């Protein structure tokens, strides 16, 4: 739906096009600028940052800051860079995304194809759970993780992310399976397929797109999480975001902006990579999470 009115004269139409393109390009530059500045700053030596222009391209681009951020920058008292925390995040994200996606798929399957009295209430409760402010569960969670001996552990964070991601993964799969014809399930039942066979043989082979959407959504959310990380694993097992914040906000020693920026780019790379490779699915996940029910 594009509304280019045919009543406008060619000259003013051309001016209008010019304005539209000009505005769009200007805005695109504004949107790119912060990340661009972050990137070029990470490639400059500290002296050039102090004396030069923030917007200027690096005169002698070097990856020194990247190396330092990865391997030797000081976070707290240890000076081993962010690499350990990067792996923490990976070790956290992989099981948390996998488990929450599998459970979400099964829940969506039950809530659409094996309905029982009260299924609406169950779904409603799971749906609302997506949107609670997590501050309302922080204190009990900290206590329970402590009792389970999972404080400051990756396993504890996996549990937390699975639990609070379940609502979304269930929502995604429920809405997807809702549109899957019931007659196929009935046909498979008459053919003698059981609960898991129907899921495995009939539904799952058609679930590719929603699996991608869910995995990307969960991956982005969990990778980017800060609140749970800082609350339940702020030490050695801290995820990437927490380490980055510690690095950037530490006030001891000389402020190495280039190292900070390089660390920030490391933290941004995995999700940006996913966004570039599978942007379409990323947007679909965002929309599905926004336009609820």
């Amino acid at each position, binding site marked *: 739906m594009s509304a280019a009115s045919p009543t406008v004269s060619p000259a003013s139409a051309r001016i209008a096009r010019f304005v539209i393109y000009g505005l769009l390009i200007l805005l695109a530059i504004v949107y790119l600028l912060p990340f661009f500045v972050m990137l070029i700053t990470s490639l400059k030596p500290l002296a050039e940052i102090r004396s030069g222009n923030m917007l200027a391209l690096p005169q002698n681009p070097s990856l020194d800051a990247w190396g330092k951020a990865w391997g030797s920058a000081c976070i707290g008292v240890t000076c081993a860079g962010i690499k350990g925390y990067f792996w923490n995040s990976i070790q956290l994200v992989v099981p948390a995304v996998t488990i929450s996606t599998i459970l979400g798929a099964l829940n969506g399957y039950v809530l659409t194809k094996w309905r029982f009295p009260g299924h609406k209430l169950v779904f409603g409760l799971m749906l609302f759970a997506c949107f609670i402010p997590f501050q309302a569960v922080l204190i009990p969670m900290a206590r329970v993780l402590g009792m389970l001996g999972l404080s400051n552990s990756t396993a504890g964070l996996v549990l937390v992310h699975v639990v609070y991601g379940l609502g979304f993964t269930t929502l995604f799969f429920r809405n997807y399976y809702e549109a899957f*014809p019931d*007659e*196929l399930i*009935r*046909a*498979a*039942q*008459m*053919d*003698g*397929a059981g609960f898991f*066979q129907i899921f495995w*043989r*009939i539904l799952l*082979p*058609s679930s590719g797109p929603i699996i991608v959407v869910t995995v990307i959504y969960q991956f982005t959310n969990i990778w980017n999480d800060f609140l749970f990380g800082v609350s339940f694993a702020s030490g050695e097992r801290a995820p990437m975001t927490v380490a980055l914040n510690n690095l950037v906000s530490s006030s001891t020693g000389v402020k190495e902006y280039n190292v900070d920026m390089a660390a920030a780019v490391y933290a941004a790379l995995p999700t940006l990579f996913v966004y570039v490779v599978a942007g379409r699915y990323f947007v679909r996940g965002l929309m599905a999470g926004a336009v609820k029910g």
Partner: protein
Amino acid sequence: MAFLELRDLHKSIGGLDILKGIDITLEKGGFLVLVGPSGCGKSTLLNTVAGLTPVTSGEIVIDGEIVNDLHPSKRDIAMVFQSYALYPNMTVEGNIAFALEMRGVPRPEREAAVAKAARTLQIEHLLKRRPSQLSGGQRQRVAMGRALVRDPLVFLFDEPLSNLDAKLRVEMRAEIKRLHRDTGATIVYVTHDQIEAMTMATKIAVLKDGVLQQVGTPDEIYRVPANLFVADFMGSPAMNLLRGTVSADRSAIELDGSEPVRLALPPTVSREKLAGGQNVILGIRPEAITDESLRDPAAGVVTTLELPVDLVEPTGSDTYVVAPLAGTEITARMRAQSGVAPGRSFGFVFNLDKAVVFEPETTQRID
């Protein structure tokens, strides 16, 4: 003894009665068509037989066993769905073989069974394709193949032709009928299309609002409908229904309307069951009202009325002629070249041998 028997089936969902006591029997090899307007409960009835919908009360008997408690897959029935319900991720071959695979039939046997079904339905060249690559008619055949390969006790069809265009529907109708003849299968078939019902069934059950209106052969249903609903629902154009009063001597029916018009009493009703002055509705099919040239020489009771022609509707093979009578309109079926023209009066020959009489209050036929 009946092969398939439904005994006093009731189904209610959330306090709403969908089926209100259905009794039907079907012999082995029979072709039962459940017909009725949408929302009459015919699909629910089929689903209860399939086991996809549990019944509230009553019994479903298949081949001497009450199967109410059995899972759909244990009832030895196969079903063809309205949307065909082909598994989108499997090939045609995979679709047809799926039920056998689930039952643990070894691969060689499975392949042989698929090949046989494919041969019967002439879809051998489609076996490697996926459902999305098939036309509507081909999908229909695959859906039937999936049912056929099971060799079940009973086949269930849920409006299987409603997604096809008119021409294909006629073809597939013949195909299903041939299949029934060749395999001797027992079939229960749901449709809202009364022509499908008439052409295929050995037995028709007409439903309305969860109540069975009439069960009978297509001929019975058409010729002697049990009530006004069946009379009106079956047949196209619909049966002419004329209000009137039984004459004092009970030899004729005096039709309502400004001018006195008398039609002789149809022989389908016995005089003893009528009282002089009783209100009745006379039902007569369009083909029983003709012009003089098409008059049935064997007809016993005939009345000819001179009526002004209102509308002429040629269909090619026949011409339907509409004329006002008894405060309503009647439709008569004439030859294509009958020379009838609107505005002129014309002699309509009523073959009352084929007319039926209904009681207006109860809507039941008087015999």
